[in-house]
């Protein structure tokens, strides 16, 4: 059984069919990229899985349970962590506080109105570990708003890691990065993901990144999946080349 099973997912906005009958499986432990040109429906698809949008038709099952149309916070509680295409942080909190908030999200004692210092201590430790893994420990005390754009992206990934989720969904993690930053980030990401045990769905624009990181690649084109296979197979696919890769590679 796949960890995430999307069946015939469809999202219509009026006359526009943003996501059209998408069926996709993500197996436990794999890094599965979803690529496609602008407007292919990547972000909409992403939002359908994470509960930011409700599908017009189709189902999403996670770890064997139907999560179609559940609110975002419930899906997060089930064990899906996400990052946003445009960085979403708590700008007025420090980097550590940002990650700590992510780490305490699934602590059973998180509702403690008074005290709860052991919840914060646990979360703080988890936060420091996540910052370490993303190589941004040196910024732990800085406000998130004071970090460079690249470090902010890494911070958001650290938050997703700290949620201790079974499925990590990264929405264009290298978006807005310079070439040098991207190289560094891909190395860091590869280090984090190589640790194993983590399943990743990666929406990405940058082909270099995708071919370096992904075990499998699904190609979205005009809301439809036109290929879903190993990177070398997708790269050789005639249809994909016509639709997409030709213009970029």
């Amino acid at each position, binding site marked *: 059984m796949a960890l995430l099973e999307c069946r015939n997912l469809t999202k219509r906005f009026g006359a526009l069919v943003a996501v059209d009958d998408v069926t996709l499986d993500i197996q436990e432990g794999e890094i599965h990229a979803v690529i496609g040109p602008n407007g292919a429906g990547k972000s909409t698809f992403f939002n359908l899985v*994470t509960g*930011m949008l409700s599908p017009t038709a189709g189902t999403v099952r996670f770890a064997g349970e139907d999560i179609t149309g559940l*609110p*975002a*916070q*419930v899906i*997060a*509680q089930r064990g899906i*962590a*996400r990052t*946003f295409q*445009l*960085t*979403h*942080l*708590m*700008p*007025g*909190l420090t980097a550590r*506080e940002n990650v*700590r*908030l*992510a780490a*305490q*999200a*699934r*602590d059973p*004692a*998180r*509702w*403690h*109105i*008074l*005290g*709860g210092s052991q*919840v*914060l201590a646990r*979360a703080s430790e988890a936060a420091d570990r996540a910052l370490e893994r993303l190589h941004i420990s040196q910024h732990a005390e*800085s*406000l*998130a*708003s*004071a970090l460079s*754009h690249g470090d*902010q992206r890494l911070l958001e990934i650290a*938050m997703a890691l700290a*949620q201790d989720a079974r499925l990590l969904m990264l929405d264009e993690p290298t978006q807005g990065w310079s070439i040098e930053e991207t190289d560094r980030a891909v190395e860091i990401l590869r280090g984090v993901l190589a640790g194993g045990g983590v399943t990743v769905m990666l929406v990405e624009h940058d082909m270099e990144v995708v071919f370096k990181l992904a075990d499998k690649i699904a190609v979205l084109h005009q809301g439809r999946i036109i290929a879903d296979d190993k990177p070398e197979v997708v790269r050789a696919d005639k249809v994909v080349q016509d639709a997409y890769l030709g213009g970029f590679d």
Partner: protein
Amino acid sequence: MQPRELIGLLIALGVGAALPLVLPVYMIGIVTEALIFGLFAMSLDLMVGYTRLESFGHAAAYGLGAYAAALILLNLDVPMLAAIPAAMLITGLIAIPIAWVCTRSSGVSFAMLTLAFAQLLYASVYQFKDFSGGSDGIAGIQRRAGPFGIDFFQTRNGYLYLVLIVLALAYVFCRHLVTSPFGQVLAGIRENEVKTRALGYNTRSYRMAIVVIAYALGGLAGALYAPLAGFASPELFFWRLSGMVLIMVIVGGRGTLAGPILGGAFFLFLEHELSALPYVRELWPIIFGSIFIAVILFAPQGLAGIISGWRHRNSQPAAADDTSSAETPHGAA
């Protein structure tokens, strides 16, 4: 609580305890009222400063607390020390449906909904005259002694001490609340609610919870006011009071708890003293408005920000500019 905060609290309590010894008798009442207003402002700070839930209708909490305490003391044979917490609980209970409705929205619509509820209560006071006394309000509220024959808090000085103790306890409660895991979630909602929800927090429940808590504490302030004044009037629900307390939170320094206490207490005291002078009485709204504008322009962090700025400069004379605090939020819409 940090040792430094504890020391500050003890000093504040010591100063408060000494007040009856140094103040002329006629000022005890107004100082007591000022402290009650400080408690009221602090309760609003939980919403405005810590969760960025701007309420234009916090007078609803004050009025509910005052009327609940007044009606209990007038109609039931219970001691004042029981009526006050009971009024707080009643305010909190009534706040649940109000919070449920208001937290369906956020931003300006949230502010308007809180205002609407306060005005609805204001109108209800006129509507249900038999119950609420209408425009006359409720007069003749007793500070009934007990339990166990305790009558210390019924005296002028005793009531000041009662307010001081309640204010100190409420401050400790709020300080713990904002530093708890729950308080961290409030900070997350303040900074970026969409992200906080994506992390797995049911942000609406948290917003509802803090509205109810803030109303209950505001109700506690109102419940302390009614026996002090001896009456409750519909003005306690009026939008003017809501606006005043919001301004005091901002002038005192939102998100600091102590700032709004100082701001609320200071302004109420100042208003009372200046209003007693001929000619100045008419000028008071202009003075008040000018101070508000000056704070917004020159000290957006409020009085608390000015004070911590001084402390910062004095403790680190050669400190480099703190660039981190002046940055704008990046990409977080």
